[in-house]
């Protein structure tokens, strides 16, 4: 583990019970890492397992029938999966914080904003209530809320979506965590607010050096904010690349399809390309490579054996038989399609 490394997930596997005896793996063989001060993107369609992965890291699977069955999550020298509940509880909110998709429902409707912030602060510090209140106002100011006094006395339903998400971010950042996990933080917000929130998050990284794991299905956001990206499909990581390479030279056919389907200004085309088919149901996964039924390059081996995630150069990894030396062929670049 290098000096710069903050989080390293290795071979994570999380299973869910679908009946009394059967479990299925929602995600498996998940390996990725985040370095200090990095904004890393985790991209994929709904249902690909992004949220499950993030909840597994922070071990918040108790609402679900999910269970981590394999792997390790290295954070600052310890394996989070081996910590006791109490030790993990102390890390949550203090060293790793998480914000969620729907800010409006993620705040307790019967408690005032300041009390919710104070709660978060007092959990991990020795502040008195008064000190915590002042700290809360500070954090609200730092996320760009112009009138923290007034907002802190409000109840969640009195705030707009953008404001609520700022409050969530303030609450998450109030104890200065090293890692912020943001699960679809802007999906429920208007586009203009989206931009503000993203700026805010980048600002946090710039001033505090907080690493961010940004989970989203929106490639545009990824392009704007992330330095490295992991692409997930059907519970697997299928590509890893620095952001510019991901967009200019995607290696996995799925990623290529995704990039190609982004409408681009000035491009003359009759119809928007798309990836045929749909994401398979978790209980009926195809054998071999999970993407093969929808892949235009599918070969025989693709339906038989699942490929490993291998490095294809010093910064890129891909889980595809096409990239393995024996099967390597030139793939079409997403840009020129005819």
């Amino acid at each position: 583990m290098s000096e710069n490394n903050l989080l390293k997930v290795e071979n994570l596997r999380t299973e869910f019970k679908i009946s009394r005896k059967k479990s299925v793996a929602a995600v498996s063989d998940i390996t990725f890492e985040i370095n200090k001060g990095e904004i890393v993107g985790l991209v994929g369609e709904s249902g690909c397992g992004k949220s499950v992965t993030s909840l597994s890291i922070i071990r918040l699977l108790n609402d679900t029938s999910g269970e981590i069955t394999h792997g390790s999550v290295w954070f600052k020298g310890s394996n989070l999966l081996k910590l006791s509940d109490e030790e993990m509880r102390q890390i949550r909110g203090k060293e790793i914080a998480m914000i969620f998709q729907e800010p409006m429902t993620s705040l307790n409707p019967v408690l005032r904003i300041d009390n919710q912030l104070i709660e978060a602060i007092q959990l991990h510090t020795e502040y008195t209530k008064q000190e915590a209140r002042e700290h809360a106002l500070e954090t609200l100011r730092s996320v760009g809320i112009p009138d923290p006094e007034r907002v802190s006395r409000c109840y969640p339903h009195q705030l707009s979506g953008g404001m609520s998400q700022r409050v969530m971010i303030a609450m998450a950042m109030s104890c200065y965590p090293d890692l912020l996990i943001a699960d679809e933080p802007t999906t429920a917000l208007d586009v203009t607010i989206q931009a503000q929130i993203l700026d805010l998050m980048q600002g946090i990284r710039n001033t505090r050096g907080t690493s961010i794991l940004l989970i989203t299905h929106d490639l545009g956001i990824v392009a704007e904010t992330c330095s490295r990206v992991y692409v997930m499909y059907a519970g697997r990581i299928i590509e890893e690349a620095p952001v510019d390479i991901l967009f200019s030279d995607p290696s996995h056919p799925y990623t290529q399809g995704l990039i190609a389907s982004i409408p681009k200004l000035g491009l003359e085309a009759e119809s928007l390309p798309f990836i045929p088919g749909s994401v398979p149901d978790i209980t009926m996964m195809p054998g071999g490579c999970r993407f093969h039924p929808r892949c235009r390059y599918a070969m025989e081996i693709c339906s038989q054996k699942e490929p490993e995630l291998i490095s294809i150069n010093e910064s890129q990894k891909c889980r595809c038989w096409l990239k393995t030396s024996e099967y390597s062929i030139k793939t079409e670049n997403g840009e020129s399609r005819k």
Partner: protein
Amino acid sequence: MQTSTFIDQPIKKAENRTKYYFRKFFQRKTAVIAAVIILIFLFFAIFGPQIAPFDPSLPDYDNLYGAPDAVHWFGTDEFGRDVLSRLLVGTRNSLGVSLASVLIGAAIGTFLGVLAGYYGGIIDSVVMRGSDILFAMPDILLAIAIVAIIGPGIINVVIAVAVFTIPSFARIMRSATLSVKSSLYVEAARSIGCKNSRILWVHIFPSTIQSMIVNFTMRIGTAILAAASLSFLGYGAKVDEPDWGAMLSSGRNYLDIAPHLVYFPGLLIFIAVLAFNLLGDGLRDTLDPKLK
């Protein structure tokens, strides 16, 4: 190089809806047991007189207040009559009254509720105000008041219980109707020119049945308790007729010397109501789309 193929997954055959519900229902053991108990009670109600070991009205002056023994499994009452036989025959009364009253209340309440939900306007206001008024008094009190007006007796108990059952059905069916009213298939039916009444009863009503079934079952339990309470207070069946509530009422006088006269009738009421409530719970869980 293969050409891309569309996903070739087997589509799960859509299970017949009734079969699906049955399967889900039988997975819940308590509900099944409850259903069995109810069937047993129904059996008693129908065949009570035939299977009763003794004539329920036959006194036996040599054996007053007899404790339960091998001959009289549940003992004898203050006239020496066999308690078990009276209970068995009384099933017909107690269950009959409850079923009848809930059926009547459900029929009227459903009719009013569906009309109110579908047509809205004045009908809706009238039905809603009406049920507010009926709801303004606690159940038992309303029943007592009604029985005070129309007099005691089994038929009147049925009427009283039916009356306070009406508003709950009216409310439930009204909201069920309201939620179905705006669905697409109703719009489709209307657009091909279906008459209102046809839309109402052929299209909307069947979708609302789910809401009704659970409420129906639970209300039977309520009705059994209400009828028994009324009988206990003396407003129900005549004292000599075998009726669980009435037996409890007269048995009360002999509590210290013959407690079995109180234990058994009440126990039966308890089991019957419990069975209906468990069944209602089971049905609600079965029919609830959110629970898989």
